[in-house]
């Protein structure tokens, strides 16, 4: 029998099945085989989601509408100060709130002594990335890792959904009226701004790294999946450490796009509220340096314990009505971390505050964790930062672990009585050992991360 295929469930599988999880149910119940392989019966079940060795987050940081770095973010969470404001982005004429990061307009990637190579990356998205890199001693930590392992052995794996699209939006407003041509300055900057690889290209060049690099772009799960790919690369021996995270910045496409889908609230979003009426868009950049635990471990260090990835296979912009994809992602993360649902102290919800998303995530969370595990959404503080939502959730999870607190849900006054999970409104001060953070994106792309202390 080929390696990697098993006929019978392993002991570990049996344990999980006994715990009542609905593993693989959706697949087994799938009604048809569009590939036309009606004779192919899935005799084997692939093992999937093996356990992983914890990976330490040696250094990590976040910039969002809440502020720059961990301390400002923590203070805003603790004081329940939202980063959302009435939309004041460019000349956007939509009645809504946004989570804009102050000062991005006034900075430049190519400022000071930056090389010509770095100057060409200047755009809102890379400015926000640079602002992120500059917080919490992150750059110094990466330099030390670079010296420890060698520049070739440190990967850069980031997530983004819209990269530097704002530059293209601006360039289209400056097309030659006669020929329709884009301005010549755009033609040379396209690669360094609009292109989806731009943020990882910039971060890799800025930090002087020469290892594997890529940008993962699976809409709102992008930067959560960056952690998963980095974990795979470290396990496969392609690198020893990885700069992971992601960045997404405000642009016209997402503001007018979400408005066209009628998924945007006119006020600050109210996740899980019975009267919630849509999401609020934001922007953020977050980074973590991931390393194997035996090199980097110290008591109390924050580690990535598990990850789970899945797809809905259902619809481009609407989640699977029973949340089967989300359930798969959470179960795979538990399996990989060798934890059970009862081991999770807190769930950081994707919690976008649209009617359907919160309801379906609740169904999925309740199905895996039951009614008592604490969960909340922090979108009322930061807004939905799309491709950077995954890393934003991961960094907030890390802060819960190190600062012994659980954020509630901001702007929400009455929890939707139709929700059955334990949604927390008020903040709690209590020790937290393990957090699961959810990210679900367009195209039905899901990723759950589990972080804990070692």
């Amino acid at each position: 029998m080929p390696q990697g295929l098993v006929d019978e469930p392993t002991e570990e599988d049996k344990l999980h099945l006994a715990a009542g999880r609905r593993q693989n149910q959706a697949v087994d119940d799938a009604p048809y085989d569009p590939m036309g392989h009606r004779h192919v019966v899935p005799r084997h079940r692939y093992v999937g989601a093996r356990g992983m060795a914890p990976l330490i987050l040696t250094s990590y940081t976040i910039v969002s509408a809440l502020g720059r770095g961990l301390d400002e973010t923590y203070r805003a969470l603790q004081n329940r100060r939202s980063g959302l404001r009435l939309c004041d982005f460019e000349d956007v004429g939509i009645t809504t709130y946004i989570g804009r990061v102050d000062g991005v307009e006034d900075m430049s990637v190519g400022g000071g002594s930056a090389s010509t190579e770095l100057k060409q990356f200047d755009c809102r998205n890379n400015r926000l990335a640079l602002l992120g890199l500059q917080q919490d001693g992150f750059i110094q930590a990466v330099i030390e890792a670079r010296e420890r392992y060698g520049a070739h052995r440190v990967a850069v794996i980031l997530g983004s959904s819209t990269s530097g699209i704002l530059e293209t939006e601006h360039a289209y407003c400056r097309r030659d009226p006669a020929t329709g041509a884009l301005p010549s300055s755009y033609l040379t900057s396209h690669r360094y701004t609009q292109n989806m690889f731009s943020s990882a290209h910039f971060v890799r060049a800025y930090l002087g790294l020469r290892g594997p690099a890529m940008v993962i772009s699976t809409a709102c799960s992008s930067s959560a999946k960056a952690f998963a790919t980095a974990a795979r690369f470290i396990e496969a021996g392609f690198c020893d450490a990885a700069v992971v995270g992601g960045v997404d910045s405000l642009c016209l496409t997402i503001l007018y796009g979400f408005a066209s889908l009628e998924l945007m609230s006119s006020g600050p979003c109210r996740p899980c509220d019975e009267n919630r009426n849509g999401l609020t868009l934001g922007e953020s950049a977050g980074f973590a340096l991931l390393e194997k635990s035996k090199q980097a471990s110290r008591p109390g260090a924050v580690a990535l314990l598990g990850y789970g990835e899945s797809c809905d296979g259902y619809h481009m912009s609407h989640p699977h009505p029973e949340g089967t994809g989300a359930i798969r992602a959470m179960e795979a993360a538990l399996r990989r971390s060798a934890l059970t649902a009862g081991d999770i102290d807190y769930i950081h919800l994707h919690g976008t505050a649209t009617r359907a998303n919160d309801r379906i995530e609740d169904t999925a969370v309740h199905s895996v964790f039951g009614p008592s595990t604490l969960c909340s959404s922090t979108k009322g503080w930061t807004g939905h930062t799309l491709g950077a939502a995954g890393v934003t959730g991961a960094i907030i999870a890390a802060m819960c672990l190190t600062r012994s607190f659980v954020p509630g849900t901001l702007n929400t006054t009455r929890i939707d009585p139709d929700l059955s999970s334990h949604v927390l409104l008020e903040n709690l001060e209590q020790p937290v050992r393990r957090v699961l953070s959810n990210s679900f994106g367009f195209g039905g792309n899901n990723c759950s991360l589990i972080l804990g202390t070692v």
Partner: protein
Amino acid sequence: MELYVNGIGILGPGLAGWDESRLVLASESPSWEPAMPEPSASLLPANEQRRSSETVRWALHVAQEAMRQAEVDAREVASVFASSEGETGVLDRLCTALAAPQRTISPTLFHHSVHNAASGYWGIATGSQQSSTVLACYDSSFCAAFLEAAAYAHTDERPVLLVAYDLPLPPPLYAARPLGGGFAAALLLTRAPGPHNLAQLDLTLSNDLSEEATIMDDAGLETLRTGNQAAQSLPLLAAIARQCDTLVLLEYLEDQHLLIRVAPC
């Protein structure tokens, strides 16, 4: 790192499908007419075929071809999709609309703009709920995807479908990124031998840049290879087509090489 190729899909100028293309790629002096093929993507329901972009149809066409050869249940297969430029036709329409005073964009156009549109449609068409990674790494997108697919196959011990694709950009964007092709390629990779092995691969990621990257002997195929990240797969596909032991060297960014030893099965 050992891998097996269980199925291949290919679509490019003069390269319409693996059966036809492997003769071209195995030949020392191929007779090669760069006629542009049409993708079928027949696994999409008719209404989705109409709504989906050309980029999505190219990606799904090769994905479908590789899966058909491998005879593996698509619902058991994880996927890695790689595109440098993504949905540029949609991008052009969105930016044109946003440059107009009303800034009216259609909701369908917006949700088709995501870089993972092809992956999303693949999930919808097959019902697969397995992991799907969608990535970009400029001209090294195929190489980055190969690493991701190999790492996934090894850590999760699940078949992985790698799909790399890019089409020429519409005007006026074409002037900013004059991509050649279009080109799309798909490889179904497994850690262990499958029922229809086309080749055994042994992958090493190397910092040794002393050796030159493998090129295509035919001038037309070489132009295709250098003009489109997805066509960077051509030296690997040619080695598989020739069915003899070959070492293929692919350039990954400017700093690393993928060394892939290709052995016939």
